[in-house]
């Protein structure tokens, strides 16, 4: 593309939700 540079490409839906992440924007190892 000449006018646009895309940095990344939410649609984690299937793999997410295990609830094991730490619980008052970091990566999830599971995802």
């Amino acid at each position, binding site marked *: 593309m*000449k006018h*646009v540079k895309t940095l990344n490409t939410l649609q984690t*839906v299937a793999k997410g939700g295990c609830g094991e992440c730490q619980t*008052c*924007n970091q990566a999830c190892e599971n995802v």
Partner: protein
Amino acid sequence: MIHKYSMNGYFIVLDVNSGAVHIVDEVVYDVLDQYKKTDEEKIYDKLRDKYSHEQIAEALDEINELVESKMLFTEDIYEDIIPLINRREPVVKALCLHIAHDCNLKCRYCFAEEGEYHGKRELMSLDVGKKAIDFLIKASGKRKNLEVDFFGGEPLMNFDVVKGIVEYARSVEKENGKNFRFTITTNGILLNDEIMDYINKNMHNVVLSIDGRKEVNDRMRVRAGGQGSYDSIVPKFQKLAESRNQTGYYVRGTFTKHNLDFGKDVMHLADLGFRQISVEPVVADSSEDYAISEGDLPVIFEEYERLAKEILERRKKGQWFNFFHFMIDLTGGPCVTKRLVGCGSGTEYLAVTPNGDLYPCHQFAGREEFKMGTVDTGVVRPDIRKAFEKCNVYNKPECKKCWAKFYCSGGCTANSFNTHGDLITPYEIGCEMQKKRIECAIMIKAAESEK
């Protein structure tokens, strides 16, 4: 939904529902103002004084390609996940243990009122601490990873009980198939080599409270006699940070109306050698002289942008440090489920007071109407948990239409309650600052992508 903004010479477009981030040129940036609002002929008409027909045509082609690839104006498909989340087994997997409702500082902005939380001075007993661990193991269901924060007041004022709780949890975790991660927050006054050694061996994370420059810190973080704490804590914090190889800790400061040039405090902490830094806005009643008001926002926005540029400059020189509120992961990050429900207060994350009462989080501790049970009884107010379960971004009208919802997860429920008296109306000043921080964080990523 898209969000577009320009900062530091970059034109940035965020596709909210896919999370895609695009750096665009000015042609695409301007065309997007008209796209989907009018037909292509009118777009050519409106922009022909600024761009050639060919430039506009190319921009439209590329925008259309992104739309077809589901990277721009993507549909929101996540609201349907909420019922699935609510059907999950209700578990508690993290506790904030108020190990001491007492403190050796009298920080002027402290929501805990010298550590007492609207009550009396009190230390948690080892017996209550052990019962809290037993409650957590039982209430956590099939979850394996459990978190325990040692909080206060000042936890080091009751450090023998901290050690006793850690020892007890370690003695029962394997037989129950659990993995405990401990963290502690301290003002540093009582830190010594022995305690540092213990923290390094047992605490997954440690939060060190300091506001920044000496005059800033010592204005708010004072001892009972009014003396500042800076000179006492800085050498100890530096030693602890180095002993942890500059990871697994944060120095955490609070900025107020009195230091809206808080970027200087961030840089001061970096100059002291700290590599993990957080300086966060105070949340206070609007009657306080240090409270941040809506009128302060333009100055705060400028300061965040200045800080973002300074961080980029320092990184170019090899002087790397991490500013917590500019952390963002554009290639992985939390899963959608986590983004929708946020910190888990009142559901997966509860606070335990020194006498064993359970509250939705440390900010609600001592408010009798939010008492959910005790470590002996467990949660006996499922209605409170239900109310907090509803705190997702689709149940908050202001959040549902906001471009930042998948990054802030609906904000802090305690701030909502303290500002509006309900759990779902966001604290607007906090929202505006959060959005500016996300914009700065993405701009930093854009700049770093050019290396």
